[in-house]
């Protein structure tokens, strides 16, 4: 089984390995945006009592045990102690959904659980509750390596790569042109990061709030004067998936703090 798994990883890697244009960042040169934070921001992320995202994690912990929907069930009634049952889950999302025959992200997984099992309304993207639950579940993977090795996601990863490398917007730049080819340089006052989603949902100082990876992607797209993909759109999830595949092996930091 282990050998099969390794083989499928190789298949995934071979299928997605770079076409012409931007070159992938060599695996050993990848770095989290954390490495380039100022000392104060690093300290803010490192200490749970000063990390402003901790409030979201605590909200999520409360919601975990709160009954929801007409089924009158809490997450904890099926999943038990999140510290055990949710350990490593966020590190491998987006994951393959057999029902959708494609990737779903953690927010969509939470909402599927709500609608199918709790018989509750789905939570809105970027709502306090959905961010809180995502942060709480994400926190259970802190310190674990990001894993993307499901061969069923090969074509979706490839679709994400296409989105990552296509020029968009009136400015007409691709994600890769900045984050693969020009990371480490200064875009005016901002350092161009490699763009690894190691800490989502993050507390972004510019937002003064917790926010999702999709929100962050929209910020970049609006900067390119492009029309952002809708929350939950297949393109949004394929980009998230590609970014997690690209960050495979890096450590989950959730909840992260960024400028």
């Amino acid at each position, binding site marked *: 089984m282990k050998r099969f798994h390794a083989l499928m990883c190789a298949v995934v890697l071979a299928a997605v390995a770079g076409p012409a244009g931007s070159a992938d960042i060599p695996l050993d040169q990848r770095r989290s945006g954390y490495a380039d934070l100022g000392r104060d921001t690093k300290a803010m992320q490192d200490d749970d009592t000063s990390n402003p995202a901790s409030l979201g994690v605590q909200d999520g912990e409360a919601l975990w045990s709160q009954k929801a929907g007409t089924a009158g069930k809490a997450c904890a009634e099926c999943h038990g102690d999140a510290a055990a049952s949710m350990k490593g889950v966020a590190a491998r999302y987006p994951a393959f959904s057999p029902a959708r025959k494609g990737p779903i992200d953690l927010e969509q997984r939470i909402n599927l659980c709500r609608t199918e099992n709790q018989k509750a309304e789905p939570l809105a993207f970027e709502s306090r509750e959905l961010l809180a639950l995502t942060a709480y579940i994400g926190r259970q993977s802190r310190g674990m390596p990001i894993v993307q090795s499901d061969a069923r996601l090969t074509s979706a990863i490839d679709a994400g790569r296409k989105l990552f490398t296509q020029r968009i917007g009136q400015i*007409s730049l691709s994600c890769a042109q*900045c984050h693969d080819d020009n990371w480490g340089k200064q875009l005016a006052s901002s350092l161009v990061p490699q763009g690894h989603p190691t800490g989502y949902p993050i507390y972004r100082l510019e937002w003064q709030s917790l926010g999702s990876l999709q929100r962050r992607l929209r910020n970049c797209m609006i900067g390119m004067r492009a029309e952002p993909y809708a929350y939950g759109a297949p393109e949004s999830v394929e980009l998230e998936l590609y970014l997690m595949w690209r960050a495979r092996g890096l450590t989950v930091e959730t909840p992260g703090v960024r400028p």
Partner: protein
Amino acid sequence: MTARAAMGVLLASLAGGAGYADELLPYRIEGNAVPVSLTGKPGDAARGRTIVTNRTLGLCLLCHSGPFPEERFQGNLAPDMRGAGTRWSTGELRLRMVDSHRLNPDTIMPAYYMIDGLNLVAPAFRGKPLLTAEQIEDVVAFLATLRD
């Protein structure tokens, strides 16, 4: 032309709004240059400087640096603009502004006078070049003054 038709033309030209038109002025490329002014007139270098240093209009300083001591946080994704007027002729500067992609398909330099072949442009910017022909001539006139 009837009075009604004339009014229609007038309204159509007003609908372009904000000095933009959905049609770009035609221009001719010779070698690596657009030798003739897009507007047929020389640009204004002083106005060009204000466009270059405006981070939401010219956008130049996000990637480039240049002789602008008052401007903090200039980018370093692209070459310093000092000496641009020595390195390139006015016509070469104009092509670099108008359609940099023609010179290097992989460049990160936007094509400032191009509306076709773009992808997923936000509605507010559709059919509009990054700068008008007049603004491009102003920037070209300014860049030509950067001679050291």
